[in-house]
């Protein structure tokens, strides 16, 4: 790693996070016991596992709270690899002084989301640290489930000609958090935080389903850049096809953000073979959360390989790159 200290930029998704992860995994990789970089690991015996830490400010935001977010985040990591969210572990680090009612309200929303998914809390841990050691609380989840597809859903399965889809409109979680954090209320702007399993589980029989990823930190843009790099293929997007709500657009315009890089917590990107694209869309659109599902681009062997380009609304072409560092609101 080039930098001498870890900064918030390393935690924002995008290129710097990738560098930090590679740096941290080095000890494991040297010993040949490192993970592959997907949302959840596929384990021997037909199981999948993932872990994810959550720190969000504010802890309760338009459309959810940190408890709901923790369950959705973990469950969605399993879902995009074709595994059902069966068991959850939760570890809480609480700052001295936080109110028990507040924490239990997050447990209530976590439990209700688990119940909705048929997920059981199997393990847990709590720690309390002195005031100032963390801001309020950190919640870390670990989810475990059974793989429900005979095919491996992975970046390495992406092929030339595949269609690229999103399951709903992008950027709503990041925009909702930014709206709360920067005190810029936008009417009707809610986080998309929701479990994806009910919708994605209906696609697992499709032979053309290649790869799925929930577009969390770093947003859709980061996911597609990672896929393009890993597959060494060219991804071309059509700007007009990418669903972005009016509210997300407005907030991004004000703050100088790009909806492509805003976090989602209930939206997945999919790569699907052409033969199954229509069927995928048809199934997705029947789900209440995926009415805006759309084909947004194609995978090809065109140049430049390993990169993402976009056909813009006005008929121009441009590159889509991975974001760098912390996404900060602009001056004017």
């Amino acid at each position, binding site marked *: 790693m*080039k*930098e001498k*200290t*870890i*900064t*918030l*930029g390393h935690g924002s998704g995008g*290129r*710097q996070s990738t*560098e930090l992860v590679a740096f941290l995994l080095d000890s494991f990789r040297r010993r040949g016991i490192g993970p592959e970089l997907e949302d959840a690991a596929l384990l021997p015996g037909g199981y999948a596992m993932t872990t994810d830490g959550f720190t969000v400010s504010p802890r309760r935001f338009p459309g959810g709270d940190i408890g709901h977010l923790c369950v959705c985040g973990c469950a969605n990591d399993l879902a995009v690899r074709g595994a059902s969210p069966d068991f959850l572990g939760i570890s809480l680090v609480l700052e001295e002084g936080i109110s028990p009612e507040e924490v239990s309200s997050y447990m209530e929303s976590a439990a209700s989301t688990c119940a909705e998914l048929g997920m059981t809390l199997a393990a847990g841990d709590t720690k309390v640290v002195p005031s100032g050691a963390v801001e309020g609380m950190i919640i870390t989840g670990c989810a475990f489930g059974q793989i429900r597809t005979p095919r491996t859903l992975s970046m390495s399965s992406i092929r030339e000609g595949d269609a690229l889809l999103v399951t709903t409109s992008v950027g709503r979680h990041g925009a909702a958090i930014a709206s709360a954090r*920067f*005190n*810029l209320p936008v009417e009707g702007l809610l986080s998309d935080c929701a479990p994806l399993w009910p919708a994605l589980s209906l696609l697992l029989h499709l032979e053309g389903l290649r790869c799925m990823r929930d577009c969390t930190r770093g947003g859709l843009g980061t996911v597609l850049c990672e896929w393009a790099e890993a597959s060494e293929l060219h991804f071309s997007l059509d700007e007009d096809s990418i669903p972005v709500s009016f509210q997300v657009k407005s907030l991004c315009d004000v*703050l*100088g953000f*790009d909806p492509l890089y805003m976090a989602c917590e209930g939206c997945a990107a999919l790569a699907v073979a052409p033969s199954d694209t229509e069927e995928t869309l048809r199934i997705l659109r029947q789900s209440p959360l995926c009415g805006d599902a759309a084909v947004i681009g194609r995978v090809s062997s065109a*140049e*430049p390989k390993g*990169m993402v*380009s*976009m*056909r*813009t*609304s*006005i*008929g*121009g*072409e*441009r*590159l889509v*790159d991975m974001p*760098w*560092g*912390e996404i*900060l*609101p*602009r*001056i*004017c």
Partner: protein
Amino acid sequence: MPTSAPAVAALLGKISRTPLSVMEVCGTHTVSIFRSGIRSILPPTLKLVSGPGCPVCVTDQGEIEAALSLLDRGAVVAAYGDMFKVPCDGGSLASKRSRGLDARIVTSAMDVLAIAGENPEREVVFLGVGFETTAPATAALVREAARRKIRNLSVLSFHKRTPPAVEILAADPDLRLAGFLLPGHVCVILGHEPFRFLPEKYGIPGVIAGFDPDQILLGLAEIVREHELGTPALRSVYGKAVRKEGNGKALRLLEEIFEHRDAPWRGLGTIPDSGFALRKDYEAFDAEKRFSLSVKPGTLPPGCRCGEVLTGKITPPECPLFRSACTPGSPVGPCMVSGEGTCGAYFRFYKGDSL
């Protein structure tokens, strides 16, 4: 959204006969041009040159150092978000924050009033950066702080005036610019008058445009039209938002709080009368006076050619550091730091002629 862009681009292709370079002064224009892929649909005769209009990019190293020195002295320093990553020899607001110093992001200058109220025992300093678009907000903050007699709030005013910098570029014989695309939001405040020197003194068209691709293309078409007909003028395609006389309220506020001074622009050097300094009546809120700071213009790091990028003399790929030593992850010069900087925009959106 319906767009007239393809039609205007086609029109541009028809009316643009002689090769010409047009400068978009403002960083928001630069990013919109890249994000919408405008360059890829322009006629080959029309070359766009990105100017010095990103407030982050032109904030001098010495100015950043002054802000960091106040953090070191225990003050709370509040700034707009995109200032956080701008490096100088002493680090950046972000790196200071990661070492536990109290640098805070605000989206409105007025947020600083609350920070000062919540920290009565501490000095709270607002880093005032930006052009005529953000200077009125800083002026309003100073006036409100004076009205409430707040004792622990002050402002580092590094605000800059657009017209003197544009005039330097218009007068530069090496650039030979055929027109300027002027930022709509700056002209909403200033009106037409401060840029009238473009056609009148230099015979160059100046067209005021908004920031969506349709507006930018319309503005470019107007510049090309005036250039081809040899009738340079100052015009607005921004509609009713820009009044010729500007925004009287904002102008009066600027006049009340600020006076003009010479100011250092990163990469461009000191430009006479191009800065906004607090007037003597408000010196109690002037952080430079309160903390006896002397802000010295900084020097660019060795090899950095941001000065030539900011004046449109070279494009970022022509700088030897671009993409090798200088990346958004470890920027050498300011044009790479900001999301609206020319080098940052090239890095993100442009990978050579194939795109």
